[in-house]
């Protein structure tokens, strides 16, 4: 129990931070905002999975990936493929076989039909099974990350070069998904998703449930991250980041360690992609381009690249900012975002979490002192690590 407290919850401050976040996500937001905005939160939170993954990979391991959207997208497409096949099967059932056969091929996604594909491609078959879909959602990104990791890290490609390569991969994937229309739905993506194992995911109730599931996923990822970063592996990541040669000359295979964290980050990002699809009911290659991948890094930097919880706040704040400003001042948005990123990396390399850690405790003490002097004071400011 005690070791659980220390390694999963991160001691006292870690627990406080996690409790505050959980209350915010699970209680405060659902009670205070409408269904539409809550769904938007769910959408943003599905990106926070990537930000958390980047804390481990980039903040700790020093591996900057500018193409994390690739893995996020793969997870999204896996989930979308499953939902699409289910939708296609249902349409066939509802309309009756005879009638539908004349128009489309039974049970294959509509976009395949539009592209004169009459038989389900072989690699779509596994997505008929939900357990298999879930497994592939983890396995595919992990295997790709493994191949990239081995190819790059064994050759000692790192830093900016690695970042550029991840970006190129992300771009290649986008092109692949856009051009192979009959297999992937092309530029429109996979749309019109309806049910998950017979459960209609479009109803307000279902959306609410999915929002909560997303939150639980986020909290699970934070706990997992806390545990992982608390092992010797976590300290090894810091060592690799700061003094790669020393690690090598202590008998470790640095490439393996980097590959491992890159794979873990890929799998976690992929889960986020799947939650995204559940939240919004479609998947599109436009979401998997380079731009979102860069946003993901910004989320992480703003939240604090050494803080798992900070990454969630960073994602929410930047995403809200983006939605708000890009509607109000679309032209200014990019400049604003760029300056925020530069400012954060130059002035607050530890992001929001760093600021809270620095100013939080003194503020807390001050408030506590005021409280003691005259009881009816303002409610306590939140503290998060």
């Amino acid at each position, binding site marked *: 129990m005690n070791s659980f407290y220390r390694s999963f919850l991160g001691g006292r401050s870690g627990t406080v931070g996690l409790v505050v976040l959980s209350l915010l996500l699970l209680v405060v937001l659902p009670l205070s905002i409408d269904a539409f905005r809550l769904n938007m939160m769910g959408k943003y939170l599905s990106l926070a999975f990537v930000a958390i993954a980047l804390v481990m990979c980039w903040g700790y391991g020093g591996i900057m990936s500018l193409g994390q959207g690739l893995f996020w997208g793969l997870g999204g497409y896996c989930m979308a493929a499953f939902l699409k096949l289910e939708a296609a099967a249902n349409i066939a059932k509802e309309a009756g076989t005879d009638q539908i056969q004349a128009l489309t091929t039974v049970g294959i996604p509509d976009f395949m039909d539009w592209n004169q594909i009459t038989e389900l491609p072989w690699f779509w078959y596994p997505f008929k099974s939900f357990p298999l879909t879930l497994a592939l959602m983890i396995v595919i990104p992990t295997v790709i990350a493994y191949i990239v990791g081995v190819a790059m890290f064994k050759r000692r490609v790192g830093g900016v070069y690695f970042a550029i390569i991840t970006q190129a991969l992300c771009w290649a994937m986008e092109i692949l998904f856009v051009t192979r229309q009959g297999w992937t739905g092309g530029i429109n993506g996979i749309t019109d998703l309806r049910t998950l194992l017979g459960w209609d995911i479009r109803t307000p109730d279902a959306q609410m449930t999915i929002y909560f599931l997303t939150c639980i996923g986020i909290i699970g990822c934070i706990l997992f991250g806390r545990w992982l970063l608390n092992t*010797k592996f976590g*300290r*090894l990541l810091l060592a690799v980041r700061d*003094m790669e040669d*020393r690690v090598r000359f*202590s008998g470790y*295979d640095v490439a393996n360690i980097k590959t491992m964290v890159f794979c873990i980050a890929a799998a976690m990002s992929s889960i986020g992609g799947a939650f995204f699809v559940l939240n919004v009911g479609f998947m599109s290659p436009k979401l998997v381009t380079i731009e979102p991948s860069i946003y993901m890094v910004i989320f992480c930097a703003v939240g604090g690249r050494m803080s798992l919880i900070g990454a969630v706040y960073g994602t929410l704040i930047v995403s809200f900012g983006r939605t708000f400003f890009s509607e109000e001042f679309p032209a200014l948005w990019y400049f604003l975002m760029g300056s925020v990123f530069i400012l954060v990396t130059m002035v607050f390399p530890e992001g929001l979490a760093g600021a809270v850690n620095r100013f939080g405790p003194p503020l807390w003490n001050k408030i506590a002192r005021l409280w003691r002097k005259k009881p009816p004071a303002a409610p306590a400011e939140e503290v998060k690590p």
Partner: protein
Amino acid sequence: MIYPHFALELEELTVSFDGFKAVNGVTLYVAKDELRVIIGPNGAGKTTLLDLICGRTKPTDGKITFMDKVLTRLPEQEIVRAGVVRKFQTPSIYPKISVFENLELSHPKGRTAIGAIFFRRTPDVVERIHMVAEQIFLKDLLNKEAEQLSHGQKQWLEIGMLLMADPQLLLLDEPVAGMSVREREQTAELLRSICKGRSAVVIEHDMKFVRRIADKVTVMHQGKVLAEGHMDDIEKDPRVVEVYLGH
């Protein structure tokens, strides 16, 4: 001549950087239990020689054997696992974690990625860390962030990190650089004590220190071995005086 059994054998070792031979046909034998010191002017190729032994730089030519095992083409971590460890010229430690954790990471247990995830801090690991910390004069600073140590303490910590693996051969590049006189004395003692039952190759400029620790001294100049022998003889060698000691 009776051919004694050597721990480390370098034969005709050469490395060329775009035609510039930083190490040029070096042949060197270090016996078991021997503490060899390499001296020589700046740019003589001393650091490069250690780079070659530990696998950081691959030789263009020549052969490296340690305890009958050929190291010439092995990757760095394999060389470490064969018992050869290296201290760098500028102290390289992990700045953001504690002294204890620095030593722990240097323990040979859990050296694979998976092994590191499931590594448990067992009593024998802790005991070894305390033992080494005591040796390197850092036993009261185990919880300090390594970044906060003084320059000399960082040098010690790095030596301690090498000791964690219980190595057979220590390669030390200027271990007393930046140390006070008192720290130098402590380090000389430390080196003498840790090199019992091990071989060591130490690069050093401080002649007083060299005299205290060396069994034998090798002088390098322009990538080649200029002279080799006991300190007393080396000091009288006119060639050595000319290129190095005379300055």
